[in-house]
Each structure stands twice: as C-alpha cells, then as structure tokens.
C-alpha cells in the first residue's frame, strides 16, 4: 500500500505575497515632515529623538512627528498607517530589539513603503534572523534595514546620543535613497 505524505507547510508556501517595492525617495530631507515611530521598547523613543534632532540640525525646516505603536509585536493598525500617510513625508521606525518586535518593525517598514512612504527601520544586531526572515516572508528578502549594536535597553543618556549620531547618517542615506543596503555594513 502506498499513500502520499501531506506537506504540513503547503499553505504558507502557496500564499505568496505581492512583491513589495520601495517608495520613491525625496532628494533631500529639507522641508520634510519626519515621522519617528517608536515601538515602546525601552530607549526606543530616546534613540529616535536623538536621530530626529540630528536630522533637524542638518536640514532646514524639518518637522519631527513622534508617533507610537503601542503593541510592538502586532502589525501597524490601519488608523496609524493612515495617520502616518497624512502627517509624514518619511518615517523612521524602531527599535526592533526582540524576537517579535524586530520582525514586526521590518514588516511595518515594508507596509509603509508599499503605500508610498519612504522608511528607515532600525533593528539591533542580535535580531538579524527574524528581521531577514520577515523580509523574506513579505516577498522582499533583500529589504534593507539598519542595524545598531544590541542591547539598547541599558544605554545611558550619553550612549543614546552617540547612537543617534551614528544612526542619523545611515537613516538619512536610506530615506533619500542614496544607499540601498546599509544593513550589510
């Protein structure tokens, strides 16, 4: 007697997503509204603020728009996506520093790119695996995300400023599209 063995993974292999594309990039951040989308993880807001203030120092008439995703592992609520589309020109997302929130941050970035918002998403370097796994699952295995050294939860105020300084240049490069994959750095 023979029988076919059922592939238990067949469903998610079959449901391939539409390949996402990056949003069109602005030439400069000058005059733009920069969304800072925190995920409630410890020090995430502080790092985003530090990045934002560096970008505001470097460009004229930048508006910083802080927003919060309250459930760090869940997809962005539709209302928040609509709010970001309405209120921001580009969005910095972070910080993915855990198993679920890193993947979720990358998924959020891909969601926003698909609706036309340029993003720069930051994860910590301990979570390359889920970040890349999520990018692949969304049909964009080479999607660029920025990495910063893990951990961030225990950084001092001085350490946060240093991170902001280091990340601001990479964030800007990603947002204006002059660098394709900073993640490999």
């Amino acid at each position, binding site marked *: 007697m023979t*029988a*076919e*063995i*059922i*592939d*238990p*993974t067949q*469903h*998610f292999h079959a*449901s391939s997503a539409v390949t996402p594309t990056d949003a069109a990039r602005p030439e400069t951040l000058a005059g733009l509204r920069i969304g800072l989308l925190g995920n409630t993880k410890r020090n995430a807001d502080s790092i985003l603020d530090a990045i934002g203030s560096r970008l505001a120092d470097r460009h004229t008439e930048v508006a910083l728009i802080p927003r919060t995703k309250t*459930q*760090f*592992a*869940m*997809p962005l609520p539709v209302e928040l996506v609509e709010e970001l589309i309405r209120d921001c020109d580009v969005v910095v997302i972070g910080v993915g520093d*855990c*198993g*679920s*929130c*890193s*993947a*979720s941050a990358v*998924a959020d970035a891909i969601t926003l790119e698909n609706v036309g918002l340029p993003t720069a998403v930051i994860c910590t370097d301990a*979570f390359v*695996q*889920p970040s890349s*796994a*999520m990018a692949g*699952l969304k049909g964009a295995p080479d999607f660029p995300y920025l990495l910063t050294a893990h951990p961030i939860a225990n950084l001092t105020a001085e350490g946060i400023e240093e991170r902001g300084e280091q990340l601001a240049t990479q964030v800007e490069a990603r947002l204006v599209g002059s660098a394709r994959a900073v993640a490999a750095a």
Partner: protein
Amino acid sequence: MSEHIAVTLDPDVATGVAEEIYGRGWTDGLPALPATEESVQRFLATTQRAEDEVAAHHPQLERHVTVRDVAVSAVMAGCLPEYFPVVLAAWDALSAERAALGGGWQSTSGPGPLIIVNGPIRHQLGINSEGGVLGPGFRANATIPRAIGLTVRNGFGIRPRELEQATVGTVGRWQLCIGENEEASPWEPLSEEAGVEPGVSAVAATLVRTFEVVDNRSFTSAEEVLADFVDTIQRSGALIGRHSPTGILLNPAHAQLFAGAGMSKQDVREWIVARAGRTEAELQAVGKGLSHLPGGPFAADHRHPTLADAKPATLPIIVAGTSNAAMSMVFRVLGLWSGRSFPVR
C-alpha cells in the same frame, strides 16, 4: 504471551519515512508520523467543525491555520484521533492569549503553552492529572501540546533561530498538557472558575516561561506553606516589568491543608497577593528598580506587589499531581492568562 502481529513492517520503509520528514524540516527534533489523507480524515471525523474553518491565526505574519492544518499536525505529533477536539480547544484557548497573538511564539522567552484540561474527557482520553502530571509517560499529555508546537512550526512557519528567537527556551516547551486533579481537589475546578458549567469538558491555556518547585512536605500549618509560596513568587528573576504574572500547580496535599484551614481558593489567592512583593530598594539592588515607570520615581521603601491583583486570571491555581510528597510548582506566565476556559466541542 503477546499476540502475534500479523502484518509485516518493513523497517527500511519506516526509517525512510521518518528520515524524509526530518529532511523536509517538518519535525521538532523527534520522529514524527506521516500525515496522509486517510489519517487526516480519521481525525476530521471526530469534530463537527468544517475542515476549512480557521482554527488559529497569527496577526504579525498574516497567516492562519485551518482545522485541517491542525489535524495534519495532530497526526504527525502522534495524537490519537479522539484527542483532536482537545487540540482544537487548546487552539481556541491560545487564540484568547494576547501573548500568543502578540509575538509570544517568536519571543526571546521561548515560552511553552501550558494546556489545562478539565472534565470527564480527562478519563476518556487518559489525560494524566495525578502522579508525574508534567510527564513524561502519558500519550495524550505528550502529544496534544506537541501538535500545537508542530502547528506553530509548520502552519505558521515559526522556526527556531528564524522567526523564533528563544534565548534558551523553556524546559518542556510543546510538552505541557495536564489534567486538573479534580478528584483530589477540595475546590471547584479551573473551568468552573472560568464560567464553564460543571461536568463540561474544557481546556484553558497560557504561555509559561518557567517552573519552580515549592517543596514543603513537613508543614505544620497553612501559613507556613503559604509563606513559602510568597517567598518563591516574589523572587525577582522573572520580573521584566511592573509585575510578574504567575500561576500555581498546587499539590493536592497543599490544597487540602488550605481547605482544612477553612480557606477557599480565592482566600489562598488573596493571602498570597497581599504579601508577595519587593521594595524599590530591593529591586534596585538587582538592577530592576521600577522608578522609570509611570508613578515613579519611588522611595526606597516603596513596596511593589509582585501581582497586579487577586483575580483568577492573574494568579491561576490548578490542583495537580499526587500527594506522595507535598510539592507544588510555581510557574511564570508570559503576558497574562485570559482567564477563560473553552468547552471541548
């Protein structure tokens, strides 16, 4: 003398099937059975639910699994067909857990779902609720949670070191299914506390990070044992926020001691919740001060309760095991138990 087995098994074929399943990456490290249309249909025949009904979903990955997908996992895990309604009820229960929906399966905590079965189905399926309740040695207890794990792996596609980021993981992950020892409990079972009618078989579940034993077998009073629980529960190790959600697998001997002292289950809960806590100074000494949280900064002698309140969902108490020695288990919950129990249907 054992009966002669009249079928011939080709060991090369059996090994080949096992290796094929390993090779495809479909199993958790132990051999798994092949799911075939015939075996899956036998499982589907045990439930009224349609095979294409959604049994569980994963918001972050935007994936769902159907009743049929869960049946495939249950076959592979080694369940008997009659276990299948319990596996589905376990998914009902896990689908009410915010931690499971919100990234718990990928968590660095590497939690294991603890599945708690109440009612007559424990006896019908041979679900152990007595000695060695945390296993191993009992097929239903071992394979029902494994079916959940294989669904997470194959149905949601969440695998270790990919989307799943367990730091070390939890001892017993995908192995935690117990019956409540209702027969040895002086109190109403967990399912009734959760609002299910008496005598109805039901399943509750939550995500567990770790277990710690409370071995208190030479007690002379209820207060001693209660204080031992408080001492274990208020330990700071599992604390990652303001509170450390906790549950108790309560030894029948401890339950009977408390009931003999005139205490209800809720009395026990309130006694413990009122006393378990640490001061800000004690938490700061281990690097876990809470002064950065709303309401802070806190004075050194400010007392932080370990548990937010004395609701059953905040401190579930399940009577389980046997009283050959009075050992209970304290367990840590990832997130918070929903407080709900789901009838087996």
